[in-house]
Every structure is written in structure tokens, then in C-alpha cells.
């Protein structure tokens, strides 16, 4: 059934199980991977995995039929479907001509379904391992899914090379322990199968023993049964009829069931004894009577196995397999990193937030504290932008700026572009991005510049008229001064509000005071050369940083990396989202600019 060339199709594959199979293959020095293909209902593509240190791809098919058709050599299907769907997928596999063995991992498949699958498999001359199993292993050849645990265990139990013992059990968990026993007492396992803990496994203890009976490499057999059910009696019958000739050492667990006052269901579905003959005691006694080698308790199971093995060696029936050193499996990067075997420089540094711990933090403060202690939006912005929580008046100022700059009607460049994009049928993100991309030196981008120039002039000790003259000499328009519509007679309400808030709440406003002196100078030249909203925001932000004791370096850095324009971007995104939603709700059609609004030359 299995050999060093056996290949499997894996249904509902688990990446870890696939990798463990491939690692085992490498350990056994198989030429081809034991996994031929993967099936995930409705998807298609490639799965990457390691075969030794080499990375390989395994094809993923949308159906069992597709996988079987493309990989006629793969005659095993390992089914990882849940207990709800394992019946249907196993049936499909049994119907594929090329699939001869189906391994069903799921636990909790209804008995009626398990019995029906067993019937189908018999009618078709096929073989089922499971349900409710970890699978099985042919040492040095083929390993089903997660059987035998870690690589270290596989090597300790000598499973990377064939021994001489055939082992079958109900329990998957205990088969690992038994592989360990066999490695200590014999030359190791040839093939081991866990038929699964259900009442009606697809293949029985006996069916597997009869397979071992036919394998020339298997010289002796070991069986671990359990209380409940009558499957062990089939083995006894076969032994009595001479169908089992190889030495068989067997034990049925559950001899303790009599001490329980009320009925107990042990871990496995089938592990419940309903009648005297289903008890472990009755089965052990009957096995012994039939000539099977049965210990007095699990305690001397290993001795009985060793005795049987040694006598076969003595008789020359069994020539002990030689030990071999398997190749080393490269360590997985994640494992090596976790065990501190290796180190690696990081590619990205983050200093403002952290979601890698128990709880998300902003600037080192847990999100639960931020919510419970009622931090404001301004607090959060200052924590993520400046890595510290600002005093309440400053956080509130940030919020005022956001409110004032959130929108400025549909005519300004940003909102207009967002509206045009939305009318062209673009989605929300694209439309807002289209508006956002218009923010720059002429639209909304004067805040940083205003802050820089006014701060520079003030800090150098220039008077207002000296500053204006200097800018004129350099032929630079003073950023933050001037408005297309508003004037000294028709002041911008937004600027009035911000100035008032700062005057009422900031400890000092020396930069604003300087800017207002500059405004007096520029107003002498034209009525609309007022301190505009961009300039006001930028300059007040410099006042804010100064009164919040930002260092000189921090302040300069903040102004140079575009932080203040960020305020405008953040604020205006609120308005732009609003405009796009507005257009969507209105089902506004495609916009075309009118000819009469364009001068053709």
C-alpha cells in the first residue's frame, strides 16, 4: 500500500502537516516529495513549501477530481475535511479510479456515515484509515500528515529507516509512545497504523494485521487495542484459524473500567464497554487463550515485545536493521529566531504606536486608557504626530483647526476635483485621493511656509517692515498673507475665530503678534493683503510649539517635514469625503466642462 514512491493528494490541506510530510521525505532521502497535490474547494494556485533546503511549489486544485486527473500516480488521499463534510469528500475520493487509500483525520463523523464509507471502500477494493486518526507511517518511506510528531522524535524512534515490526492501534496519541517503545526494544517499526478511536473505523485492527502478515519485511506484529467494541475478537478468530502466523504481541487498554461507579466514556468514541465481552479483561484473556502474546499489564508490554523480538533474532528469522544517520533538516527561520539561534536587523522602525503586545498603544499609552480616560481627538493626534500628549488648550486648538479647515465649499480646487472624480464614477477612495492630490503650494500648502518664514524673521529679530522689505527684495510673496476674496473691510471669520481662541487660551502669542504687525505693513500696499487662514494656522502653531516647550530642533524638524500641511490634509479629508458621499447620494452624472468656459486659440 505504501512505499518510498507513494504520493498523496491532500484535501483541505494544513500547511504544517504538509511541511512535516516533506521534512520526513527529506529525512528518508526520498527522491520525490510524498505530497503530489493539494485540494481546496473552489481555489487554484500554488503552495510553497520546503523540500530540504530547497523551496518547491505544490499545485492546488479546486476539486479532488481535478487533482486525481492531473496526478494519476498519487494513490492516497489524506482528508483534512471537518466532521461535517468528511463523508462527502471521502466518497468523492473513493470514486476516483486512481485513489486507492483514503485517510480520514476528522473526529466526530456520524457512525452511519463511517459505516457507509467502510462499505463503499470494501466494495471497490479500497482501503480507509480513520476516521478520528492521526494516520500512520511506513518507516523510511511514507508518513501520513502529523503522525509521529516532531522531527526529533522521528529520529529518536528510528522512523527514518525501516525496522521489522508491524504495529496497529486504535489510538493515535499512544502510537507515538509505542514507536518509542519499539525503538527501545526492537530494531524499530516497519509500518504503524492508527485505525482511529471510533466504533467503526474504515479499516479494522485485523485488516491491518492481515496486510502486515503479507509483508515480507514485517517479522513480528504488535497491537494495542482498547475496551469497547468487538474488533479484537476478529483478530482472535483469525489467529485461531491460522490466518495470523507471525508472532503477535497485543494488549487491550481499559482494564480499569470496573472501578468506576457510573459509566465512563473514555477519550475515544468507541472506548465504552457495554457488555462483559467488550471489557479489556475479557479481550486480554481471550487473546491469551488464542495464542497471542499478552502481558499481564501494560507495565510488562515492553518486556514481552523485547522477548519476542530477541527470540526471532536468535532464531535467525529476523536480521536487525542497521542504524543510519539521517540528513539534517534545515531549521525554519521562525523557529531559529524564536530560539535565539539567529538574529536579523529589522527593515522598518516605528516609534509612535505598537500593536505587537497584548494591547495597542499610541505613544506608549494603552488604547484602553485612552478610551477610559476620555482622551480627545487632539490628544491622539499630538500623540501620534509629536509622540506626546499636549496640554488641553493645545489639543483643543488642533481640533479647532480641524473644524475650521474641514471644508470650504465645493468650488475650491480639492473639493472640485473630488466631485469631478466622483461624478466620473470613481469609488470613494479614488475620488478623495483625486482631491487630496491637488493640495500643494497654491492650495492649502502655505501653512508650513508661513510658519517657517514668520518664525525665521521673528527669531532673527527683524521688525515687521524689515521683514516685508527683505521679502520684496528677494521677490518672494509672503506666504500666509493675502486673500482672493477677503479684505481688511471684509475679514475672514475663520481667522478672527482662531485669533480669539489663541488670545484667550495661549500663554503667549509672540509670533501672532509679529504677524499682525506684518499685516499692518502689507495692508498699506493693498487692502486684500491680510493674514489669511493658512498663515494664521501656521503662525499660531509656532506659538503653540513655543509655549509647549518644544525644543528648537524639534520645532524646526516639525516645520520641515510637512507636519502643518498634514493638519490641512487631515481636516480637508473630512470635507472631501462629505462631498464625494454627497455626489454619490445624488447619483450625480459625469461632469463635462462647458465649451463656453474655455478660450480656444
Amino acid at each position, binding site marked *: 500500500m505504501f512505499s518510498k514512491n507513494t504520493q498523496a493528494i491532500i484535501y483541505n490541506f494544513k500547511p504544517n502537516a504538509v511541511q512535516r510530510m516533506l521534512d520526513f521525505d527529506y529525512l528518508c532521502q526520498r527522491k520525490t516529495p510524498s505530497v503530489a497535490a493539494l485540494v481546496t474547494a473552489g481555489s487554484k494556485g500554488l503552495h510553497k513549501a520546503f523540500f530540504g533546503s530547497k523551496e518547491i511549489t505544490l499545485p492546488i486544485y479546486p476539486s479532488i477530481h481535478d487533482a486525481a486527473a492531473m496526478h494519476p500516480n498519487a494513490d492516497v488521499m489524506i482528508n483534512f475535511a471537518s466532521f461535517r463534510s468528511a463523508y462527502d469528500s471521502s466518497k468523492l475520493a473513493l470514486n476516483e479510479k486512481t485513489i486507492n487509500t483514503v485517510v480520514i483525520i476528522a473526529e466526530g463523523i456520524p457512525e452511519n456515515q463511517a459505516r457507509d464509507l467502510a462499505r463503499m471502500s470494501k466494495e471497490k477494493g479500497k482501503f480507509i484509515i480513520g476516521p478520528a486518526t492521526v494516520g500512520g507511517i511506513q518507516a523510511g518511506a511514507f508518513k501520513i500528515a502529523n503522525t509521529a510528531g516532531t522531527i526529533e522524535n522521528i529520529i529518536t524512534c528510528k522512523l527514518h529507516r525501516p525496522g521489522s515490526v508491524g504495529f496497529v492501534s486504535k*489510538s493515535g496519541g499512544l502510537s*507515538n509512545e509505542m514507536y518509542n517503545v519499539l525503538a527501545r526494544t526492537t530494531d524499530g517499526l516497519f509500518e504503524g497504523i492508527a485505525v482511529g478511536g471510533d466504533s467503526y473505523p474504515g479499516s479494522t485492527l485485523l485488516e491491518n494485521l492481515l496486510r502486515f502478515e503479507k509483508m515480507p519485511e514485517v517479522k513480528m506484529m504488535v497491537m494495542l487495542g482498547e475496551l469497547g467494541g468487538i474488533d479484537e475478537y476478529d483478530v482472535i478468530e483469525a489467529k485461531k484459524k491460522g490466518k495470523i502466523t507471525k508472532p503477535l504481541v497485543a494488549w487491550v487498554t481499559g482494564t*480499569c473500567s470496573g472501578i468506576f461507579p*457510573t459509566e465512563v466514556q473514555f477519550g475515544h468514541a468507541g472506548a465504552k464497554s457495554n457488555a462483559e465481552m467488550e471489557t479489556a479483561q475479557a479481550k486480554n484473556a481471550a487473546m491469551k487463550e488464542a495464542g497471542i502474546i499478552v502481558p499481564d499489564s501494560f507495565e510488562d508490554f515492553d518486556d514481552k515485545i523485547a522477548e519476542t523480538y530477541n527470540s526471532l533474532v536468535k532464531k535467525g528469522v529476523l536480521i536487525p536493521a542497521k542504524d543510519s544517520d539521517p540528513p539534517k533538516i534545515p531549521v525554519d527561520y521562525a523557529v531559529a529566531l524564536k530560539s535565539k539561534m539567529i538574529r536579523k536587523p529589522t527593515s522598518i522602525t516605528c516609534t509612535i504606536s505598537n500593536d505587537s503586545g497584548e494591547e495597542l498603544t499610541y505613544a506608549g499609552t494603552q488604547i484602553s486608557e485612552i478610551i477610559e480616560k476620555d482622551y480627545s481627538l487632539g490628544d491622539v493626534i499630538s500623540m501620534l504626530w509629536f509622540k506626546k500628549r499636549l496640554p488641553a488648550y493645545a489639543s483643543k486648538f488642533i481640533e479647532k483647526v480641524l473644524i475650521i479647515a474641514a471644508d470650504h465649499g465645493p468650488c475650491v480646487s480639492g473639493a472640485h476635483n473630488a466631485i469631478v472624480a466622483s461624478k466620473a464614477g470613481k469609488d470613494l477612495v479614488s475620488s478623495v485621493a483625486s482631491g487630496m492630490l491637488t493640495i500643494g503650494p497654491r492650495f492649502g500648502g502655505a501653512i508650513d511656509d508661513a510658519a517657517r518664514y514668520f518664525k525665521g524673521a521673528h527669531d532673527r529679530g527683524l521688525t515687521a517692515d524689515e521683514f516685508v522689505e527683505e521679502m520684496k527684495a528677494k521677490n518672494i510673496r509672503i506666504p500666509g498673507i493675502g486673500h482672493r476674496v477677503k479684505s481688511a473691510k471684509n475679514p475672514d471669520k475663520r481667522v478672527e475665530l482662531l485669533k480669539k481662541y489663541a488670545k484667550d487660551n495661549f500663554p503667549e502669542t509672540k509670533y501672532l503678534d509679529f504677524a499682525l504687525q506684518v499685516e499692518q505693513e502689507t495692508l498699506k500696499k493693498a487692502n486684500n493683503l491680510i493674514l489669511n487662514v493658512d498663515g494664521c494656522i501656521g503662525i499660531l502653531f509656532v506659538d503653540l510649539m513655543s509655549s509647549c516647550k518644544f525644543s528648537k530642533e524639534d520645532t524646526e524638524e516639525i516645520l520641515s517635514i510637512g507636519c502643518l500641511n498634514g493638519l490641512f490634509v487631515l481636516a480637508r479629508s473630512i470635507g472631501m469625503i462629505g462631498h464625494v458621499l454627497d455626489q454619490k447620494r445624488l447619483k450625480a452624472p459625469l461632469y463635462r466642462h462647458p465649451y463656453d468656459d474655455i478660450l480656444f486659440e
Partner: protein
Amino acid sequence: MARRRIREYSAKKLLNRNSKCVQVTPETDLDDLAKKNPWLREAKLVVKPDMLFGKRGKNNLVLLDASFDDAKRFIMERMGSEIEINNVHGVLTHFIVEPFMPHEKEYYLSIVTARAHDLIRFSTAGGMSVEENWDKMKEFRIPVGTRPHREELKTILGVDDRTAEFISSTYQTFHDLDFSLIEFNPFTFDSDGNPFPLDCRGELDDTAEFKNYREWGALEFPKPFGKKLSPEEQFIEDMDHKSGSSLKLTILNPHGKIWTMVAGGGASVIYTDTIVDLGMAQEIANYGEYSGDPNTEETYQYAKTILDLATRDNDGKRRVLIIGGGVANFTDVANTFKGIIQALREYKDKIKTSKMRIFVRRGGPNYEAGLKMMKELGEELKIPIDVYGPDAHMTKIVPMAIDYVKGA
């Protein structure tokens, strides 16, 4: 789980939604019940406890041919009272009430599943003496994947049309609703010739719940009669329900001197087996297991619960705690030991004064680190901890533990 017994009431209702029977629990208002089921006051009644134990007749727990008021009195007198059945003590909480059916003939019918077929057994000699008349039992096997033919049924079981019809429809429900056992012992026919089950036992395959949840409805799988959880068992059961891992605890003898804390369902059975096989069943204090990679907090709570129980009855006699397990597949042994070690530290004084010795055997991922931790803990706390790995046979520590308990 898999095959679970259900109450007679549940079985009857699943087999025939219209069957005349009612359930009485401590919450039931009997007069209200009679209003909704007028037949209760019109017919003569049968009352029985419905709690998964048999031999009710022999224990004077069946009331026959009773009026509603008699039935009411019978139930009120017994509801909530403790009785002993087959050496098990338990409190009566569930009764089934049905019409009393005078009858002469008692038939036997059972259906069970087997690997390759379902087995129908039928006998015209049902009732109390069914076992004496086992030679009259007729059997009919229905291979998996087939349906019984009515004519075949009639010939093989030797029944008439109405019985064949009853068996056939019962079998249909048995199969469709994933029963693993149905037994009518006995059933009869009423004066109109309709089949009437007098006593009924049923077992369902509970793994089929996902396909039958509509038909099964609000079905209850009762615990075996008399199974009452101690606060510690309840605590572990609650933890088990909340966890993705498996944590089980049954206390068998609180004064027992051999306590076990074994990883894995299969291994825990073998440890308990070995103690029994070595003749120390009477000293087994508990049965339990932890598996499925429980986290440190869970193993800590589990170990603490067991240590608390194990050191409680300080009668000056020696005792042992067996921290056993096979070679784990993927469970990180050192990790699960961390929680156990935390509990051992907490109970170090009680461990000493109660003369407890600890035996450890485990293998699997990271077992070297786990065993080393245990060894060092023993030295640090000055409590005797014997530690073995996968090169020792899994149950090697059992005879060692027994020797210690037996020593003076």
C-alpha cells in the same frame, strides 16, 4: 463522545412525535400539564422515573393503573428524594407519565448497529422473561447501504402485516435519526390494533447532531444516574468547556493515596489500568487527563485542584502524585510543566506534611527542559520528585509509586 443514552420520554417522542407521554421535572406544574394534556385526567396512568436506570419495577418505582391524583401524589412523594440503585445513590428528578395499557401479549423488539449491518431482534415472548426465552428470538440483519423489504421482514421475523409495518417504520426512524440502539421490552398493541411501546430504551449517535438538529430539537443527553459533580470536578468541567484543550477530572476515592495527573486520554487510561493491574485499585483517588496543549494557566489550575484534594486528607499516611504521560506529538512539555510547577511551589508545605512523593514521566517536544525544571524544583523545594523521560517505559513510575505508598 458518540453513543449517548437518552431518556425514555425523548426516545418515544423521537420515534413518534404524537406518542402520548409527558415528562415531569421539578419545574413542572402538574395541574398545568393536565390542562395541556387532557388525557392525563381521562385515562388510567403509568408513572416511572425516567433517569437511565432499569429494574424500576423491582425497586417499587413504577405506579400502574393510577388516576391523575394518585400519579400526582406518587410523583410529589418521590421527586427530589435520594434512592439507591445498583449501589449508586442519586436524586429522583425526572418522571415519565403515560396512559396505562392493559394487555396480554408482550413483544420484544430491538435494533442495534454493527460494523456492516443493523440487527433487528424480535420476539413474541417479550417482557420480564425475555432472557429466559432467548431461543424464541428472531434476528434480521440489514447490510449497511440497503433497506429492509417488507416481505423479507415478514418471513424472517415471522410477523404479520401490522407488526411488520411497525418494525419497518421504527427502523426508518432509527436509521434516519442516527440511533445506535432502540429497545422495546416490551411493546404491545392497543385495542385498536395500534402498536404501543410499554418500555423503551434509546441511544443516539451524538456526533450526528449537526445533521439532525432540527429533528432532535431541544434534546437532552442526561448524565448517568447518580453522577453528581463535586465542586472540584465542576470547576474542571467548566474550565474544560471554556478551553480549546481537554481537561477532565473524576474523583473516585477522596481518601485514596494514589493521585494521577496524566497528559493524554490514552495514556491516562493506561496509568489507571496499571495501578489496577498491580492490585491497588482501592487506592486510586482520581481519574483524569489533560491534553490538546493546555496553556500554563490551565495546567496551573488543574494541578492546583488536584494538589488541594490530594493533600486535604492528612492522616499521616504516605501518598503519591503521578505526573505521567506518553511521548507527546506537538505539545510543548516544558510549557505545560510551567503551570504544574507553579502549583507545586504553592503547595510545597502541604506536600511535605502529607508525606507526598511525586513521580514524573514524560516525553515529546522540549521534554529535556521540562524534566530538568522538575528535577531542579525538587532540589529547590526539598520535596521528593523522581523524574523520568522517554527512555523509561511509560508506566515505570507506577510500581515505584506503589512501593512508596506501601512502605511504612
